[in-house]
């Protein structure tokens, strides 16, 4: 019996529980348990990905019951890739976070790791599952853990941000649940494949239509698509940095995955693009999201907030790409899901190092950063260029697919928005870089060679290694994006 699919999700869950027990013995123990759990999970995810590439979709029956009756894990190329992405990012972040956690949440480390693992479990479960309701439960796990994390920061207005996050999050999840209810009403089933089979003959039903719209709105709220984004910037910038580093790259991306999954597996292209005529409207919405995210980011003066709004902008990319209704667009959306997770992760890793050394990351705290933290900035710059879309970093290549998808679909406004947002991101990051490069901070200066120079005050090595490794991976993923498309995304899209 091949238990790897279950192990991907169960390992972090078990680790969370043991870590929860270990809190009462020794906080440090829970850290090692967490590392172990995520390592097992990543390993299983890798195994599963290899298996899926070699021999096709894996179905794993929970409790041994066949699909529509019981819950099944259905792992195809798309979620195998996303699973590996999630578990890998979670693992690396945990390695990099030890010091951050010591600094920020020293008195409740154990509980932090428990919550962290539960969050990752939720994300992995959302990605692996083939059951609509199971998806809801796991979304709630991720949400609940993030509510707790956002509220954790004592000094700021975290609790209020968290409570607002709860309100919006609950509305989102409830909409999704309602949508599932509407579908259940017409199908009597909750398994994605089964539902897809049944609604194939009910394309004209208004109930299915409303179910679809509700599911989409729910997912959009959860992923912070533009008009529904208000919770995200506060929520992400108030949570402890060790957590925002994992929630920012993953949470929204997993929701994008859910959207793509619903579109592809449950409703089908036929229904979405030929029966409904919503795609043009949604692409417009995405266009607005891209532009609005960028413009709002320009108005911020805190690096954390800037990055949060960039996420809002990137969400527009993926939603738009997925709704263009052609293969290039969908390829771009999926590739961008992968790339954006990595880019955002790299950016937030850099941010974490800065927070660790500087405490605050308001823009005028960043003076002289290139001399103070050259290694951190190296990683950060590469990630920023990737967001801007400079080849050969990966951000360029997904943008490539997205724009050519937009041309193919005749959605020139979307292509224009993508390009404008690239420019906005460039302005944004160079605004930051100028402060880091041209201004020198009043403290931490030394004298020598007749010039004043900044004393180097770099983050701990464990954090630097991870952040530079991830940034380097952006280039690697970038140049191999052709391979990724050829072995994972295209076979997946052709298989449906």
């Amino acid at each position, binding site marked *: 019996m091949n238990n790897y699919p279950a192990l991907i999700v169960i390992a972090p869950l078990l680790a969370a529980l043991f870590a929860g027990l270990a809190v009462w013995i020794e906080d440090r123990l829970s850290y090692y348990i967490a590392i172990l759990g995520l390592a097992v999970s990543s390993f299983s995810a890798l195994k599963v990905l290899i298996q899926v590439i070699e021999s096709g979709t894996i179905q794993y029956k929970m409790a041994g019951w066949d699909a529509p009756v019981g819950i099944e894990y259905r792992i195809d190329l798309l979620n195998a890739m996303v699973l590996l992405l999630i578990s890998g990012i979670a693992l690396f972040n945990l390695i990099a976070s030890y010091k951050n956690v010591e600094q920020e949440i020293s008195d409740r480390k154990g509980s932090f790791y428990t919550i962290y693992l539960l969050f990752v479990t939720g994300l992995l479960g959302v990605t692996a599952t083939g059951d609509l309701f199971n998806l809801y439960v796991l979304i709630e796990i991720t949400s*609940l853990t993030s509510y707790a994390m956002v509220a954790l920061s004592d000094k700021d207005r975290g609790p*209020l941000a968290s*409570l607002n996050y*709860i309100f919006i999050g609950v509305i989102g999840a409830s909409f999704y*649940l309602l949508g599932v209810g509407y579908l259940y009403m017409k199908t009597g089933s909750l398994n994605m494949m089964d539902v897809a089979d049944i609604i194939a003959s009910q394309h004209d039903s208004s109930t299915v239509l409303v179910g679809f719209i509700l599911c989409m709105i729910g997912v959009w709220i959860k992923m912070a698509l533009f008009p529904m984004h208000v919770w995200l910037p506060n929520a992400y910038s108030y949570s402890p940095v060790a957590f925002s580093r994992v929630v920012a790259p993953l949470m929204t991306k997993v929701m994008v995955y859910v959207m793509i999954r619903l579109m592809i597996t449950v409703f089908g292209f036929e229904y979405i693009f030929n029966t409904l005529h919503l795609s043009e409207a949604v692409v417009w919405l995405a266009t607005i999201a891209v532009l609005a995210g960028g413009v709002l980011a320009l108005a911020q003066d805190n690096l954390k907030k800037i990055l949060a709004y960039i996420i809002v902008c990137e969400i527009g990319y993926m939603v738009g790409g997925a709704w263009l209704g052609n293969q290039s667009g969908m390829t771009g959306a999926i590739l961008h899901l992968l790339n954006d997770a990595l880019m955002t992760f790299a950016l937030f890793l850099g941010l974490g190092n800065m927070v660790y050394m500087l405490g605050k990351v308001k823009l005028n705290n960043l003076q002289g950063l290139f001399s103070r933290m050259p290694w951190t900035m190296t990683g950060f710059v590469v990630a920023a260029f990737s967001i801007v879309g400079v080849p050969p970093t990966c951000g360029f290549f997904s943008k490539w697919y997205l724009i050519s998808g937009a041309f193919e679909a005749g959605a020139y406004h979307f292509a224009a928005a993508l390009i404008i947002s690239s420019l906005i991101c460039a302005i944004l990051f160079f605004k930051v870089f100028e402060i880091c490069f041209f201004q020198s901070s009043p403290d931490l200066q030394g004298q020598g060679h007749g010039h004043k120079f900044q004393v180097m005050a770099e983050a701990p090595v464990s954090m630097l290694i991870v952040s530079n490794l991830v940034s380097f991976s952006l280039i690697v993923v970038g140049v191999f994006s052709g391979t990724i498309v050829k072995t994972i995304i295209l076979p997946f899209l052709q298989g449906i």
Partner: protein
Amino acid sequence: MGMTDIIPLIVAKYNYWLFVVLMMIGLYAMIAKNNLIKKLVGMNIFQTAIILFYVSIGYKSGATLPIIQNVHEGHGHAAIHAADYINPLPHVLMLTAIVVSVATFGVAMALAVKIYQRYHTLEEDELRMRLSEK
């Protein structure tokens, strides 16, 4: 459509309509109310409305509780007819949903207490004022 047609229509659908009404009340409270705790109440009403919806889906006229009756010790129970029992699946789902909602509610209450500790108010406009003062 005469009177005679309307009554069966109402009987057939009123439960769903009222769930919509209930949901609208909850959603309205969540968006428009000023007090955070009131918003939480709205949230709970919203969630229970959804549960009501699911339970309504599961209802089957002429059927009884989804607990198999006439179970004798040992063997030879009577054949089970699906039409005799109410659809159990939505109940299961809603048990989970209730649990989720109470969990969220607990966390939200904890947050409300924490917010009150810091700002000594739970009114949104006053909170906004406090924040802008800083």
